[in-house]
């Protein structure tokens, strides 16, 4: 497509303003966190203090966004209360949510006290029961899902990549099992993890980091599409 027939992109004032603000905030934060030695020390100090303030502001905005997210969750489940049986689950969710908040508020206010010294035991017990227990059970369930996934992979069409994947998987699993005191498998597993797997991981991580740098530079030069759509 020639330059004359290419559709011209409309420049919107709002988008340009947003891009300019984002770029200046990003540049100031970068200069503050990674001072340039050629700049005067006073300017570096000012930029550093300003970038610290910007990072704090971003953290508080993130916290407010999280607060809004929980409010949205509450609003959604409050609207579900009239439906059956979904409303029952929503009721349970809201009861747990407000239960946690009320117990913590009562504990901090000194009204509710089941404590050992300074430790607030009741809210920690709720955390252990409702969050840690279910979270660890879900992580345990993952074992069955992973094994089922590996079995399904074996049933599908066999390719060289599937075979490599499964060979590495089996070597790692058998390498950790005490099979008659064999030393060869653990040695192969050690080599596999420290040479090819480590190289592959390094390649993937460098690729991800390069991707982050490219996206960051696109934002810095105003080529990112975040504000254009």
């Amino acid at each position, binding site marked *: 497509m020639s330059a004359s027939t290419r559709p011209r992109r409309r420049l919107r004032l709002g988008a340009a303003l947003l891009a300019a603000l984002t770029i200046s905030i990003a540049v100031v934060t970068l200069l503050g966190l990674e001072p340039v030695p050629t700049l005067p020390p006073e300017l570096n100090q000012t930029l550093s203090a300003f970038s610290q303030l910007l990072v704090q502001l971003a953290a508080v905005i993130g916290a407010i966004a999280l*607060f809004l997210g929980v409010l949205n969750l509450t609003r959604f489940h409050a609207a579900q209360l009239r439906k059956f049986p979904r409303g029952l689950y929503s009721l349970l969710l809201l009861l747990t949510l407000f239960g946690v908040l009320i117990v913590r508020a009562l504990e901090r206010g000194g009204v509710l006290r089941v404590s050992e010294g300074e430790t607030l035991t009741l809210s920690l017990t709720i955390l252990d*029961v409702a969050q840690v227990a279910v979270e660890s059970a879900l992580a345990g*369930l993952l074992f069955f899902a*992973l094994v089922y996934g590996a079995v399904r992979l074996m049933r599908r069409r066999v390719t060289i990549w599937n075979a490599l994947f499964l060979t*590495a*998987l089996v070597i790692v699993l058998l390498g950790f099992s005490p099979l008659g005191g064999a030393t060869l498998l653990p040695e192969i597993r050690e080599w596999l993890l420290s*040479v090819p797997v480590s190289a592959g991981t390094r*390649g993937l991580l460098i690729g991800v980091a390069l991707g*982050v740098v490219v996206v960051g530079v696109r934002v810095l030069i105003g080529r990112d599409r975040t504000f254009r759509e």
Partner: protein
Amino acid sequence: MTPETLEQIGVIAGAVLTLFTFSYLLGDNFLYRIAIHVFIGAAAGFVLLATLESVLIPWLSATVLSEPFELLRLGIGLLPFLFGLLLVYKGTTRLSRLGDFGLVLVLGVGTALALLGAVNGTLLPLVGNTARIFRPENAINGFIGLIGTLSVLVYFTYVGLRRLSGEVTQFLPVRFIGLIGQGFIAVTLGATYGLLILSALTVLSGVLADRIFILIGR
């Protein structure tokens, strides 16, 4: 109520919720949904508490509620709340543009932090590591490591040639090195999958020992 009684109630309730979660092995059912909804409610509650106690209240104490009164500090203290309020408009159709202003600061700071983190925290150390593993006493392993890292990077190269027929093909050397990289990726993912299975097995045995065996009195 004594702390010991509370602990006993906690252990039994935790074990019951663990059983409810494991009931998913029989298929999606109401016991599993009860456990998941309790989990989501508790997680949201604790996240909200952590946000309030660790970020919002200290920020307000240091700026808006701090003595003596200063207009500049008050303005800075209220600024993130103004940006946060703008985020609410992201959910509306007509005023969603206003919500973009709430994102400006987060996007700008996030870009700077991500760039610094990627360069200082990932790229430089990993490139240094790749160069260091290539030692004379460990030449073969170093060579395999170097080939692995480079070929994985080449595998994600999308530069190609457009032929006269319109078909896009990669250069032959790039395609060949990419195939080696694909092999390294398959081995890496397979080994990672194996390690993940072992981690999940460890967690499962821990859950069985800590929650379920206590419930059945073993």
